[in-house]
């Protein structure tokens, strides 16, 4: 225990002496937490629309105005023909083409029926699908308000009327969804990278040899590396929560204790992961590459960007194998839904297993004698 105290003293001295790293540790989460959630907006807005109006009737103009007024679309061009409209898509100047056929108004009034053509640039799949369905919704709405429909409206018989409400995030605001996840990501980066690079740095400089020739026990050495970064991580986490509250007004609905218990266990798991990498690699460059490989997977498969539920089964397995997925899930539950300990303890168990396995493995794999 005495030895551990000397190790900790040394690590903290080194951390506080490296002003660049220290500044990064605090500036990075603050700045990124301010920038990322604002930029990472998945609401589809500013869908660029090219309109081909072959009818030039009052109805067609009404429809176009209605689309413009919805706030989601920006009419970039009124093209004379479908063919020219398509060139806007080819040049990426438009995402959608709406074609209003000739006789639109006449057919609507006389026949009570008319078809519209929507063409979508599907390169950006999300934007295309969502933009297309928005446009459809606007058209359906337009359809309902048509004088012929309102005038001849048959009394509704057994009509199902749907009203919905967004639970836990009433305005379905994206930032509430993203900010907690970005916070997890920052902890992941700091925890994973800092610890991965630290031991490897001692290997590069040669000081590890001096450590290996002392009677320091392996677990003492690993704990001596783990605890300082754990403390730093918890400080960063607190800072992140403060930024989330200050900038985005996000105040966790659930208990802080549950939140901190999870963050604490999660950090141990992640630091263990970093330490494990550093026991396998010999240079900071190698460690960086390996850490990057995993962090990429963590980021893209953790449910930060895409829902884990809609991944194919094999991908779900991978996603569930990363601790990040579990913490993102839990932090959203606690912050937005106010989930209590009873709701999330299976996830805590998962994280605890990760923590034990990764750190145990790191201690096992760290060799004082080669």
């Amino acid at each position, binding site marked *: 225990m005495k030895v551990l105290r*000397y190790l900790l*003293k040394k690590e903290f001295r080194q951390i506080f002496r490296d002003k660049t790293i220290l500044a990064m540790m605090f500036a990075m989460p603050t700045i990124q937490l301010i920038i990322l959630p604002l930029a990472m907006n998945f609401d589809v807005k500013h869908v660029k629309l090219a309109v081909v109006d072959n009818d030039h009737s009052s109805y067609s103009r009404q429809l176009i105005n209605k689309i413009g007024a919805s706030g989601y679309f920006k009419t970039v061009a009124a093209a004379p023909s479908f063919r020219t409209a398509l060139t806007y898509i080819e040049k990426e100047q438009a995402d959608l083409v709406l074609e209003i056929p000739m006789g639109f108004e006449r057919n609507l009034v006389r026949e009570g029926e008319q078809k519209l053509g929507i063409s979508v640039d599907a390169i950006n799949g999300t934007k295309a699908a969502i933009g297309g369905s928005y446009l459809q919704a606007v058209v359906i709405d337009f359809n309902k308000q048509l004088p012929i429909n309102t005038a001849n409206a048959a009394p509704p018989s057994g009509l199902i009327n749907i009203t919905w409400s967004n639970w836990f995030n009433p305005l379905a605001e994206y930032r509430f969804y993203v900010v907690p996840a970005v916070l997890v990501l920052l902890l992941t980066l700091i925890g994973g990278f800092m610890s991965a690079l630290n031991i490897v740095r001692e290997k590069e400089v040669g000081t590890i040899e001096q450590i290996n020739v*002392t009677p320091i026990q392996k677990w003492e050495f690993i704990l001596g590396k783990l605890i300082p970064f754990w403390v730093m991580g918890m400080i960063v986490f607190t800072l992140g929560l403060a930024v989330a509250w200050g900038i985005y007004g996000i105040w966790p609905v659930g208990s802080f204790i549950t939140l901190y218990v999870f963050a604490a266990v999660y950090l141990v798991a992640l630091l263990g992961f970093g330490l494990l990498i550093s026991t396998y690699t010999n240079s900071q460059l190698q460690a960086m590459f390996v850490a990057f490989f995993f962090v990429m997977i963590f980021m893209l498969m953790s449910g930060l960007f895409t829902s884990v539920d809609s991944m194919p089964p094999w991908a779900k397995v991978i996603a569930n194998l990363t601790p990040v997925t579990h913490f993102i899930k839990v932090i959203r539950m606690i912050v937005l839904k106010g989930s209590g300990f009873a709701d999330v303890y299976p996830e805590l168990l998962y994280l605890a297993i990760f923590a034990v396995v990764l750190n145990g493995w790191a201690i096992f794999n760290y060799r004082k004698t080669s």
Partner: protein
Amino acid sequence: MEEKVIVCRELTKRFGDFYAVNKISFDVNKGEIFGFLGANGAGKTTAMRILCGLSHPTSGEATVAGFNVYKQTEAIKKNIGYMSQKFSLYENLTILENIEFFGGVYGVPAAEIKERSDNLVRKLGLTAEAKKLVGALPLGWKQKLAFSVAIFHQPRIVFLDEPTGGVDPVTRRQFWDMIYEAAASGITIFVTTHYMDEAEYCNRITIMVDGKVEALDSPANLKARFDADNMDEVFYRLARGAKRSGD
């Protein structure tokens, strides 16, 4: 019968089909200054790393301070000091912080660390620099400091791997004064070098060539045996046949 602190029998370290250390045998007596000479790549460092418990031997037997190099590496580590070829104190810690850290991990009591480190910096003439980062010190001072740290916990044996590489002659001389002082206090010194004038300072020396021990005796006896005026000549005769060169 003198007490033997290192006993080494047919010790071998093989990397693939390369014998870095090939069946070396020797004993080191308590309190002696034992020089380990050889060209670059002769296997000095590898042999030393095995004796320090940093590397597992492939075959052969060895005990250091009475402990087995296969099974009791951690017990060995409690009883030795080690100064590696590469300067390995923490450059971003101060002199006092380095002493405190290494003293602490070897279990020197805190009060004693304080008292002895004050004496140490005074003796080294580094009182003014005591709170400066080690990285800023000139090489010669770094080496003297590294040696002082290696023997701070008063080990039974200290292993020095080319401690004076790149150091000026005056500092080297002072360094050897420190070694003598440590030896006089009962610490056994195991030192590798390829400065032949330094070999003369040792009680006994071993000359390694291509992973094997080619000669082991006192400098005077070796010079007599090879009919040489100085150690340079002895070394040259033995190392001439070496097949390996360079690191």
